[in-house]
């Protein structure tokens, strides 16, 4: 297992090079966030009751802030492109010879990338949250915070496995970018990036519960906001864990199929 520590270490050093890039990304990313919060404020101004689908203004603002936090910790940014180009350019040949598992190797790089990004994004994000502190809701108690932490870890795995499997399409098609963007569009809506999923018509929201998408973002955010509690919380975490297992099995299956299909370029 020691070799994977080295991978993690190399990943940390490699991504440190992009720290300024990450800082730009995290800071620029706040502008659309401010915009969406402003739109919600305007909508709540026109609402005498101050409630939209059981969200008060503070809950709504916090929803988007917690999304930013979860995103910083779990979103896949470069990994899928790198995996696809590794396959396209024939770089994975070396992993077939080395005593190293490609999936674990990529997972280590993903973790180190997220770690560096999260540390860099900490400053602008915290500063922004501090500005909005009057409307920022913290998890109600320690158990909830614990549930959130577990759920975020599972979300990260789910995000990674989802992107990994998608990038493996490069074994079969030349250009995977369009597939990645289409899948990302679905995840963007069905994961709750755009708006809390309980704003959808109930039938649609109910149907989404049977897909992995809400567990890729919406679920941990709901835990933080105290909207999922007690048995429902731990049942949800269990379902999320099952999705991770399923995604892992799928990733392994697609990988073994792809390797059979693979013929290295160049030689």
């Amino acid at each position, binding site marked *: 297992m020691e070799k994977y520590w080295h991978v993690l270490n190399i990943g940390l050093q490699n991504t440190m090079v992009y720290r*300024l*890039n990450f800082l*730009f*990304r995290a800071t*620029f*990313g706040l*502008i*659309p966030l*401010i*915009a969406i919060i*402003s*739109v919600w*404020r*305007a*909508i709540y101004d*026109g*609402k005498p009751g101050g409630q*939209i*689908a059981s969200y008060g203004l503070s809950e709504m603002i916090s929803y988007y802030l917690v999304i930013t936090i979860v995103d910083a910790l779990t979103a896949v940014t470069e990994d899928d492109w790198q995996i696809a180009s590794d396959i396209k350019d024939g770089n994975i040949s070396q992993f077939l010879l080395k005593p190293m598992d490609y999936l674990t190797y990529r997972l280590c790089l993903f973790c180190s990338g997220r770690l560096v990004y999260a540390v860099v994004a900490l400053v602008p994000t915290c500063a922004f949250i501090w500005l909005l502190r009057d409307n920022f809701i913290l998890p109600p108690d320690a158990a909830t915070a614990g549930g959130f932490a577990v759920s975020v870890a599972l979300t990260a795995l789910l995000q990674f496995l989802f992107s990994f499997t998608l990038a493996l399409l490069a074994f079969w098609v030349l*250009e995977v970018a*369009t*597939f990645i*963007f*289409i899948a990302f*569009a679905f995840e*963007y*809506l069905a994961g709750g990036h*755009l*708006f809390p999923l309980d*704003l*959808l*018509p109930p039938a649609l929201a109910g149907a989404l519960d049977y897909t992995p998408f809400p567990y890729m973002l919406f679920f941990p955010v709901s835990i933080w906001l105290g909207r999922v509690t007690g048995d429902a919380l731990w049942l949800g975490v269990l379902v999320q864990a099952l999705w991770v297992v399923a995604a892992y099995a799928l990733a392994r299956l697609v990988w073994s199929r792809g390797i059979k299909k693979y013929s290295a370029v160049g030689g």
Partner: protein
Amino acid sequence: MSSGFKVQGSKSTGASPSPDAIPHSPFPIRHYLGLYAALWRNSVIRELGFKANFLMWIVVEALWFALQLSFISVLYLHTESIGSWTKWQVVALVGTSHLIQQLFTAIFLTNLTALSEHIRTGKLDFMILLPVNTRFLVSFRQVDLGGFVNAIGALCVIGYSLHRLGHTPGVAQVVGFLLLILVGILIHYSLMLMLSATSFWTVRAQGIVWGYYNLFNIARLPDEAFRGPFKAVFTFALPMLLVSNVPVRLLVDKLASPLEILLLVALAAIIFAASELLWRSALKRYTSASS
């Protein structure tokens, strides 16, 4: 394929004298139009080489557009208006923003994002040596045809929203709207060119360019949602809150005063002039890549 050779041929045998090709003609617009037509032909041929990919990118863009529209319809499940903006007015706004963005993508985006790569690799040398205005070549080298297809989709959405509003705009409104779309494209183009030109200094401007693309997202939101310094910055410095809001306000009779149009046009002129100044000083600074 034969037309492909024609394009190639007309490039390499440029020595043959033609009345349009006089390099120092005092009125070279026809010459440049001819050049642009050749660049168009080139792009069409390139796209035809990857038909499936071309169609897939159109699907991707259409899907993200649908996503924005579904966001609006979910918002309006829970409210009647944002400020004074009603649902179908906002749909027209999202459509207009998409129209501007797609036309900008079709004509300029690939070219401007490629600039930092041309600088890094020294390819810009080659462009500077050609007997053509370098800014012209850098800006117009490639056309992304999918953008035009998606622009048509945006026009359909705008048309449908006007139908739902029960509003038939007059001829003057439509003409003004289209002109303001051009002004909006000019603003995006000038700002993006300035950002890309920063790679003359920093070499790696990709992050900045990506960040700017993020700002596009603000343009499709109703201006009345914003207040304070945020609104001031994105109205007067980077007029994101004007580029699509003002044309839509003109189209649906929402204009508070004609001064808004004046402000948009004046800012476009200022930003374009600034981009030309920056471009010139950046080119002066350019010292190729190798050695």
